[in-house]
């Protein structure tokens, strides 16, 4: 039988795992304008511990038989089954869009200037290193850490940044001279209530102030203030703000205002197209924008491409660092609220272990383990067994 051609647009974490799942039965092509792959969670460790970046060539993570095309995709035309490249076109039997999300600093006046000065944990190695230089030279004052806009990548990361910063200044005896404020557009320090209980308690214990309903409207880098659409203004000497995130907006007729792709939350198809899928950060699905989501979705798409009616259940499984060698996991689905998992050292070791497991996981070498692990920790199954 002739092998069907699957084109994965954007060679991200989910796309790479999917390529490994499909390579036995399909002709797989991945297209990406970048050739290097970065372990993005490590940006927090670059920014707050001065760690070295972790990266690898994308080609080395892919199955040998997969084709890798290093080009920019201009648009995907589902009606005509056509991928438009910077030079030419490509057809497909199935297309999977895995174009991710990126920080858009133009949404908020002054954000570009702030980013140029302070960097952040959501751009690239240079941005994270810029933030580390600001952390190292910090000698006290007002520190503002948080989220500028409600759509962003890696939900726990801003809280993690606040905890890691507090740990750093505590270690360097700057605590009495520092006021840390965590700003968030959400009604709570962490949106999922069961996890928020731990977050709020830890922030209280460590003297981190929480400002909720704080959606950043503008940043004044001259006077060093950040203002919210809700009417508050806060002064900063140090700032680590997660930028608003947007999608690539390349799927004709199926992109929302922020460039995210209108995706069926269960089947992961784009619109009514059975031959088109979207995964990971690129979707408009209200779920965690994180690699683990793409990982879990890769299994659903792989099954659907083989004619099975697999469904995505909204599953997330996000590691969440609390500082001082403690971490928890945010485990939830569309129907099961986050489990109340107490931050622990064991969870911290598991989170840190991902640094070493990241590439084997992407190469599908850990599927035997994660299949078992995700199944064992499935929040829907726990809810049923109660």
């Amino acid at each position, binding site marked *: 039988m002739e092998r069907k051609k699957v084109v994965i647009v954007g060679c991200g974490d989910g796309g790479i795992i999917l390529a490994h799942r499909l390579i036995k039965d399909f002709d797989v092509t991945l297209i990406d304008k970048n050739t290097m792959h970065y372990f993005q969670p490590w940006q927090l460790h670059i920014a707050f511990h001065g760690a070295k970046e972790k990266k690898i060539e994308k080609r080395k993570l892919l199955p040998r038989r997969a084709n890798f095309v290093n080009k920019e995709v201009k648009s995907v035309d589902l009606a005509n089954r056509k991928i438009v490249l910077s030079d030419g076109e490509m057809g497909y039997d199935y297309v999977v869009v895995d174009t991710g999300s990126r920080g858009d600093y133009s949404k908020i006046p002054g954000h570009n200037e702030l980013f140029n000065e302070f960097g952040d944990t959501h751009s690239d190695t240079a941005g994270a290193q810029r933030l580390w230089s600001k952390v190292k030279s910090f000698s006290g004052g007002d520190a503002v850490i948080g989220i500028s806009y*409600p759509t962003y990548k890696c939900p726990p990361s801003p809280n993690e940044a606040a905890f890691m910063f507090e740990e750093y200044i505590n270690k360097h005896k700057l605590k009495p001279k520092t006021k840390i404020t965590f700003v968030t557009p959400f*009604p709570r320090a962490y949106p999922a*209530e069961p996890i928020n209980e731990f977050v709020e308690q830890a922030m209280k214990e460590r003297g981190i102030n929480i400002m909720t309903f704080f959606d950043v409207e503008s940043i004044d880098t001259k006077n060093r203030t950040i203002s919210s*659409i809700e009417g508050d203004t806060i002064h900063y000497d140090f700032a680590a703000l997660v930028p608003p995130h947007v999608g690539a907006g390349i799927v004709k007729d199926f992109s929302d205002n922020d460039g995210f792709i209108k995706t069926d939350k269960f089947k992961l198809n784009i619109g009514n197209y059975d031959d088109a899928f979207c995964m990971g950060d690129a979707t408009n699905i*209200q779920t965690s924008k994180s690699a683990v989501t793409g990982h879990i979705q890769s299994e659903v798409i792989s099954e659907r491409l083989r004619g099975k009616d697999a469904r995505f259940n909204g599953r997330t499984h996000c590691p969440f660092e609390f500082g001082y060698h403690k971490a928890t996991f945010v485990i939830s689905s*569309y129907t099961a609220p986050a489990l109340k998992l107490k931050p622990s050292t064991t969870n911290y070791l598991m989170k840190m272990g991902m640094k070493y497991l990241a590439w084997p996981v992407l190469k599908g070498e850990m599927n035997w383990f994660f299949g078992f692990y995700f199944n064992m920790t499935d929040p829907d199954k726990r809810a049923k067994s109660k």
Partner: protein
Amino acid sequence: MADENKKIVDARGSSCPGPIVELSKAYRVAKVGDIIEVWATDPGIKADAQAWANKTKNQVLDVKEENGVIKVTIKILNR
């Protein structure tokens, strides 16, 4: 009611913080006098929308439930 100023924010099927996220995105582009009606299926929206309105000095005009859909009507007094 001046319906031309009414904006419906359909957050049905999304759970916390989905509905409040959609509300705050609508507020970003709202003007004084606008009416925002949030549709949600997550009951958390009732308390969250009230807390949000208190914080932003806007007014919750009405909260009603129709066929499992919670509709919260908010008048924008402050923007």
